[in-house]
């Protein structure tokens, strides 16, 4: 995968934004493998409403990068057929909420075809879903729909938080023989970074979380008054996609208040990297899960539950969640009140029972 460099482009070019890195991943994948086909609404001539597919139709022709009729079940359903014939379709859903018409195809076929055929007919389909809020989008343009996919066995679910991961994980998704729902954090599309696609170490495997910010200093060093274990004022922030930058910012801010926070970027919700997550929580003894999606029934419940199952006796406090409220995504002028921000993360950190005070039960 990492050896596939596109003819005629050197390592000199450094895409500036995540959107460009995603486009580059598509381009490099198409150049490396003629069975990779991109299809969706406006992906061809226009280059996609976020311009992620810009230039692909020109370079590879409109049979490799195809503007489809406007019908998401049709897009994903035909992609299933294309994959059955040995192609490797990469489907773009224009926005999160516009993937819903394809739900039956995704749940009842894409996720199940390998299983149904006893492994004879895997479906190497990548479903790219620009997702999440924070871009001032009107209704239906800001949903965090990851739980629908996470809860469906047979799908991989990936969400990059960095430009390098955007490239690497998308290459990995396309190369995977399993269907991958690839969640692209819309509000990071225009995030910029210095990055070159040709460094092989930038192609991560799917299913490995990464510690974005180690919480080294405090590990086992200090034992504040009242603390049950001697792990100091450290905690783990766990997130993915658009919430990772929030967590990193919060960790930076927390340092000023004497907290040493470790930040885990899950990168992939399925497969879930229990090892990296639990190792961090065992080090710190406290954890906060952060995501934009609705709290109730959202990804954070699963994450908190499995950490608790695995690390119960290492926990100084319950795993807390900082999430979107249990409401439909708000209109643009109110979205800032809904989205988990640095302050809300710090508030949660403060509630992690640092003095082992008996605070539970307040909420009910």
């Amino acid at each position: 995968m990492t050896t596939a460099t596109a003819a005629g482009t050197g390592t000199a070019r450094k895409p500036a934004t995540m959107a460009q890195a995603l486009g580059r991943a598509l381009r490099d994948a198409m150049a490396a493998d003629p069975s990779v086909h991109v299809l969706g609404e406006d992906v061809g001539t226009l280059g996609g409403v976020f311009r992620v597919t810009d230039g692909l139709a020109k370079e590879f022709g409109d049979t490799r990068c195809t503007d489809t009729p406007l019908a998401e079940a049709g897009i994903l359903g035909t992609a299933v057929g294309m994959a059955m014939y040995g192609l490797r379709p990469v489907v773009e859903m224009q926005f999160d909420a516009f993937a819903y018409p394809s739900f039956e195809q995704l749940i009842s076929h894409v996720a199940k075809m390998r299983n149904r055929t006893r492994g004879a007919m895997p479906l190497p389909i990548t479903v790219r879903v620009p997702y999440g809020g924070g871009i001032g989008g009107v209704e239906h343009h800001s949903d965090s729909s990851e739980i629908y996919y996470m809860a469906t066995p047979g799908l991989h679910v990936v969400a990059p938080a960095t430009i390098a991961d955007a490239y690497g994980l998308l290459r990995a998704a396309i190369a995977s023989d399993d269907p991958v729902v690839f969640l692209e954090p819309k509000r990071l599309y225009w995030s910029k970074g210095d990055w070159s696609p040709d460094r092989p170490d930038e192609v991560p495997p799917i299913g490995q979380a990464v510690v974005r910010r180690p919480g080294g200093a405090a590990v086992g060093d200090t034992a504040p008054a009242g603390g049950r274990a001697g792990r100091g004022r450290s905690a783990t922030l766990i997130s993915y996609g658009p919430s990772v930058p929030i967590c990193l910012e919060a960790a930076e801010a927390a340092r000023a208040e004497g907290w040493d926070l470790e930040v885990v970027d899950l990168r992939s919700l399925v497969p879930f990297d229990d090892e990296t997550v639990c190792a961090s929580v065992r080090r710190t003894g406290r954890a906060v899960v952060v995501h934009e999606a609705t709290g109730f029934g959202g990804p954070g419940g699963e994450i908190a539950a499995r950490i608790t199952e695995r690390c119960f006796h290492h926990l100084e406090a319950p795993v807390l969640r900082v999430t979107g409220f249990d409401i439909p995504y708000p209109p643009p002028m109110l979205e800032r009140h809904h989205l988990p921000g640095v302050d809300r993360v710090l508030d949660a950190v403060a509630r992690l029972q640092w003095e082992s005070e008996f605070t539970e039960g307040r909420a009910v």
Partner: protein
Amino acid sequence: MTVLEQPGAYRPTPPPAWRPRADAAPLLPDAEPYRLLGTAAAADVAADLLTRLHRELVHGRRYNAQATALTRQGRLAVYPSSTGQEACQVAAGLVLEERDWLFPSYRDTLAAVVRGLDPVQALTLLRGDWHSGYDPRDHRVAPLSTPLATQLPHAVGLAHAARLKGDDVVALALVGDGGTSEGDFHEALNFAAVWQAPVVFLVQNNGFAISVPLAKQTAAPSLAHKAVGYGMPGRLVDGNDAAAVHRVLDEAVRRARSGGGPTLVEAVTYRMDAHTNADDATRYRTDDEVEAWRAHDPIALLEEAMRDRDLLDDRSVEAVRESAERLAAGLRERMNQEPVVDPMELFEHIYADKTSQLREQAAQLRAELEAEAEAEADESEKGAR
């Protein structure tokens, strides 16, 4: 016999006693889009209808320009203009009775405004202070629908419900050429035909779904030809001929009202502006094409026909333009006021009663807001000193 029973309905009995339900021929659209303006028949169109259409077309164009300008001033998050499609918008807004219902998509705020909706309320979704700015029952206008074609089954269900209740109500549902490809379009039209619901579907075929031209959207002789597959009549009309669109819709509405069932109308028109202010139309279409359509401008077409009949002169044109300016100025002024938003409203309309979880979350946000306000007060106090 209930309203759902159709004695002549298609039911294959054993061949050779084949009995198709309906003759397909009357369902098929004409080969050419229907036109009134510029034809001899234009002479029979009521003068006051033309005057009304004209005023609304001119107002509508100005409204679109104003709304687009508001995006540049940051007063609208986004605006999908209907410039070039005013004939469809205006006819759709005018053709219904008060008790009827309109089901618009995101591009159809003008039709809603023509129907009587306050433009500020119509634009709420696009301004971003709430998802919808009006009580749908006030003017019997459903919320603007963003997920394509999803409003069509709503229109069918509402029209069906009204009929079951014995109410004399017709629903008019708008959808774009792109939207006809969605499964919901298919399911809605089929339900409408099977139930013989009093609903009219107006496809504004403006040639593009964002960047995707019609040739990549369908291979049908016309979109109106889809009607025959549901057993309803398909009608094709010049979507820039306001009188023609009004007449075709009016006939369809009357048919629906009198129990004749649904109709699919395709209006062939063109989106003169980009998809929205955020779109770059030069990426997918040529200036030549746009200019060709400019020569078929709905306002120019109507003005020509009206001048032919001496229903318009420079003075009356000027008067209409002036009233359009006044409307635009009023809209501009009102849209330049900061809308009042209350973060606490986020928890208000989820359920009839707040769940305990929502009460907890509302309390959390309230505490945050209070802390914020306190901090701000501290700041300004410091500043005051």
